[in-house]
């Protein structure tokens, strides 16, 4: 079920009313209800893959229980290994099997030994990359004794399958989300209103910004040889906004929906395009994934300790794995490696933690220096996005090569004036709200109520007017 579908518009109010009026008396019933509706939400796409979630839930629940009673290190390691093997096994099979097979065949053919192995027609279960990482974090935290394993299977199942963030994150940590299932939720007016505001902003990001950028991005990327360099630049810039609107929009809707049910999820995007360097960008983009890799991969590898060589190795590993997480394609791996390269100068000069605060935190506008830094960072990320969007490496390289042409000084062949105006309006609000969890969090709260409500109506009208049918979320494929 898509957040931007009529199905969800019907599903959400029904679930909301039943949740607060029918199941609110009993915590267990409320959690069980959340499991049922989450499974319905997921099964709407393909009910056959519900068994995967159920199996993953059971495995990690049982392993969590066994880890409490087991004191021997070796056995605890085996149990953790089992959890990792099951979760990554599913992920590896559904997501990477054909990729490895293709590359295996190609590698052999290079050595003059052509082999023929049949590829499998595998459907990638929606959200598998997200919920496997979520359950993995539980097992690892229990293993590290950072988290008390749960005895409550229903609460654990609700944590794994919680529908707002099941299919595209944010990837929640058990330490943050699971305890929220133990406590009785009471309806909180402010939290719910805030949730609705965040849903509204998320829908605008997705349906107005991302979906409308997508039209031009698809045209330009699918026919890139026909376009001038300036048009190709426009295509890449619009893709940067498309992917931001798409994914951060989804996160906003997920977080906002959770608030309607009395849950607090962590911020997943913190205005990444206002970052002053790549390190800051990665602290602000897809935060739940970046911190996951930081805590469960980068730090165990040694993190920023050890020699410079080890640090460089760790950075490359984390970025390349992060790229590979996005998809079984060399384009994602190169995208990850390119970001690691961008990171290198900051790491080598110990400048990777220069920009912790929000840009221009005490002023209205950024300084000239900050503006240049933001611009350069945006250009670098946009260049990397070309690999993310391109069909294959060859396409990406050709696209970049075609950008470095004299026609970069010509007017783009495509000039979406309405979209430029929307982006301008969008960026202004994002800039004004950059100190908050999401742009609309406090925007207009000091205005008189009728004006504020009118502003929300304008947003609804924009969503209604600019929406396009049948646009799915990019991150569903990951």
């Amino acid at each position, binding site marked *: 079920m898509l957040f931007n579908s*009529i199905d969800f518009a019907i599903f959400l109010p029904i679930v909301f009313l039943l949740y607060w009026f029918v199941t609110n008396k009993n915590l267990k019933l409320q959690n069980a209800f959340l499991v049922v509706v989450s499974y319905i939400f997921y099964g709407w796409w393909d009910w056959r893959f519900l068994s995967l979630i159920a199996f993953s839930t059971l495995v990690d629940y049982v392993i969590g229980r066994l880890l409490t009673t087991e004191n021997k290190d070796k056995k605890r390691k085996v149990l953790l290994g089992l959890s990792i093997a099951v979760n990554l096994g599913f992920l590896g099979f559904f997501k990477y099997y054909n990729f490895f097979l293709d590359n295996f065949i190609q590698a052999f053919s290079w050595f003059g030994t052509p082999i023929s192995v049949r590829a499998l027609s595998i459907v990638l279960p929606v959200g598998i990359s997200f919920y496997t990482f979520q359950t993995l974090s539980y097992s690892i935290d229990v293993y590290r004794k950072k988290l008390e394993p749960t005895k409550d299977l229903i609460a654990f199942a609700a944590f794994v399958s919680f529908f707002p963030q099941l299919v595209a994150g944010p990837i929640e940590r058990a330490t943050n989300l699971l305890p929220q299932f133990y406590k009785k939720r009471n309806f909180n007016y402010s939290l719910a209103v805030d949730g609705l505001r965040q849903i509204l902003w998320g829908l605008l990001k997705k349906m107005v910004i991302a979906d409308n950028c997508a039209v031009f991005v698809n045209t330009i990327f699918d026919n890139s040889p026909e376009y001038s360099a300036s048009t190709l630049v426009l295509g890449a810039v619009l893709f940067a906004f498309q992917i931001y609107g798409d994914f951060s929009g989804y996160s906003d809707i997920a977080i906002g929906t959770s608030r309607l049910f009395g849950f607090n999820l962590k911020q997943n995007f913190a205005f990444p395009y206002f970052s002053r360097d790549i390190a800051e960008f990665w602290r602000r983009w897809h935060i739940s994934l970046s911190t996951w890799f930081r805590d469960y991969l980068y730090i165990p590898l040694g993190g920023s300790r050890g020699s410079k060589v080890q640090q460089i190795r760790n950075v490359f590993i984390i970025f390349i794995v992060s790229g590979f997480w996005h998809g079984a394609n060399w384009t994602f791996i190169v995208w990850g490696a390119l970001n690691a390269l961008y990171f290198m100068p900051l790491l080598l000069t110990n400048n990777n933690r220069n920009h912790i605060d929000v840009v221009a935190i005490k002023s209205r506008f950024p300084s000239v220096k900050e503006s240049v830094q933001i611009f350069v960072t945006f250009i670098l990320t946009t260049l990397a996005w070309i690999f993310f969007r391109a069909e294959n490496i060859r396409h990406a390289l050709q696209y970049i090569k075609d950008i470095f042409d004299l026609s970069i000084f010509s007017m783009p062949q495509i000039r979406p004036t309405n979209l430029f105006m929307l982006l301008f309006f969008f960026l202004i609000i994002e800039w004004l709200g950059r100190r908050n969890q999401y742009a609309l969090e406090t925007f207009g709260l000091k205005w008189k109520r009728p004006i504020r409500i009118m502003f929300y109506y304008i947003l609804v009208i924009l969503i209604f007017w600019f929406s396009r049918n049948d646009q799915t979320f990019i991150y569903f494929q990951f």
Partner: protein
Amino acid sequence: MKLFLKKTIQFIVIIGISILSVSMTLNMYLNKKARFALDKNITSVVFGHSHPETAFNDSLIVNFKNLAQSGESYFYTYIKAKQVFKNNPQIENVFIEFSNIDVAKVRDKQIWSDKYINWRYPIYASWMNISENAFLLYKNPKSLIATLPKTYKKQVERIKTKHHNYITSTSGYLYITESKLDSLLNTNYPKEKPEDLYLTKSTDNLDYLKKLISLCYKESKQVYFVRSPLYKDSFYRANETLFQEIKKEVFPEITLLDYANLDVPNDHFRDLHHLNYKGAKKFSIMFNQWLQQKTGKQ
């Protein structure tokens, strides 16, 4: 909680009322401005889908207008016919395409499936009454609601460009030059097997055919069924028995001008179901002769 629900419902109701008001205003304006008038000498028209759309070259048929359009089911034809009759009292003869596919279940889907609502509703919304809107809402609420933004955009675009001639945007002879029949016969055919939807009986589409016929009678029009030429091996013919049964049992009083088996060379077909310009020429000249004899004009 009560306050939250009250305010949320209030917000949604105001949006709903605003959308409804905009919709009604646009529809009223477009209704007022719309032009469905044909030339005064047009006394015969044909309604239907792509088969008559490509078969009736109305430049070769005297006092005749082709009002067919690809993929049009009787539901949309009925809505269009109401406007055409209202603005063209001179019309005497109404030819309605009645072929194998029109009695098949697949035609029902061509009223309210996602693709067809998305395609047709933005064009026809201005002419639909409450019951017709309710019918689509009942059949496919999701798609109808999802199509509203596109509908309003189209309507505003129409107002901006002052494009109010609905005859040109909802009908007309389609001139096709290509002939793919032989290549199709050599490649796809006879692999094409009709699905059940092509073999079982339509309900909604036939209901609207009955309404269309009643409308013609009410407006004192002479009604004919016409079956445009169809290649002999077209899989649409698979429901021929059903087709004949329905004609005989449901519409016995209506004359069927059956050209399905007209002798047409392969290169006169675009594909198995549609004529190209050569076929249209041959057929239209022949049809014109029949029409002139029938109306007593030469």
